[in-house]
């Protein structure tokens, strides 16, 4: 399984990447939405993208819209991972095409729970 972690905070990318790596994912990273699009355009086919909302250059919501516009990337599961926690924001992200929404701060278990819901827990660790 492959994941793309998109966050402008290097520390946060490391935290998410670490959890995913421990679960058996191969992880690529991008520092903003534009970089993420470049990674995807280069042919990377992640199963999952974890996307922060507030980032410079291109924010996460715009990235979700752009990824959903391109049928080539329709198999990529998109999960917002963000401090934005208003009811209306979650609704907006889901309407834009995000499959899941994880609010920071979160525990490794809650990320794992979300992957379980999405059917994206690598089989070796799925309970």
């Amino acid at each position, binding site marked *: 399984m492959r994941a793309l972690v998109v966050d402008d905070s290097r520390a946060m990318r490391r935290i998410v990447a670490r959890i995913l790596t421990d679960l058996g994912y191969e992880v690529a990273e991008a520092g903003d939405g534009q970089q993420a699009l470049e990674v995807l355009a280069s042919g990377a086919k992640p199963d999952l993208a974890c996307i922060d909302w507030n980032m410079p250059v291109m924010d996460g919501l715009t990235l979700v819209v752009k990824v959903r516009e391109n049928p080539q990337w329709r198999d990529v599961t998109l999960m917002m991972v963000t401090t934005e926690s208003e009811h209306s924001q979650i609704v907006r992200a889901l309407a834009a095409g995000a499959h899941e929404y994880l609010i920071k701060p979160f525990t490794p278990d809650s990320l794992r729970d979300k992957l*379980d819901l999405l059917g994206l827990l690598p089989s070796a660790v799925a*309970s």
Partner: protein
Amino acid sequence: MSIAPEAFTFVRDLVRRESAIVLDAGKEYLVESRLTPLARHAGEGDVNAYVRSLQVRHDPVRSRQVVEALTTNETSWFRDADPFTALRTEVLPELAKARTNRQLRIWCAACSSGQEPYSVVMSALDTPAVAGWKLDVVATDLNEEVLQRARRGTYSQLEVNRGLPATTLVKHFTREGASWRISPAVSSAVTFRPLNLMRPFPPMGTFDVVFLRNVLIYFDLPTKRDILRRVRRVLSPDGYLFLGAAEMTMGVDDSWQRVPAGRSSVYRIRGEER
């Protein structure tokens, strides 16, 4: 009885040392509710006596049980998603065919802070076969403090992160300050009441489904057998029993038949025992 401050401190330090998980002040109810079955199992009168016995004599097995009870069972929504998928796609549609009164009664027998019964109601509301049916969920727990929390129906950001799909969150919850409140459409279907599984059950009527997940593991064999026998009496003959993923009736009470349901299993009373 509530847990003594020194007992809480001891347990908090033990859990932090062994698991790096920090039990903040205010988690006394959690410690008490999780350790009460262990205390019983060990033949101690209450949690304080049980913790004292650990303080007096280091016991690696008991210490590990304490840490596991407080860490691996962290309550989440739709905990182990499979049983709830089975409920939605198999159990409720089957019951919908068998019931003409358009009513379902479900018992969550160790409901802790309410995530399981509320998840049951949300699952039912998302099941077309029982749309518009009257749903009566009875949710019980030993601990009055967790029941009070469950009745409040408000959960922290960290709690709603655990296993709750985002679509479900926005559909059934509203923000209330830093917390999220479950909608009246869900909470009104649930009645919370205290109940000790070790004692004879109070009159509750008959249920179509019983959730008894991750609680038998704390009891010894005769107690497990006795609880399962009494559950049989409150479950309708064609009803369904959900146990935890690590639990089974085999070798405990063979009046039950394990039936596959989706990626999960449920238990039904064998024909000859009905």
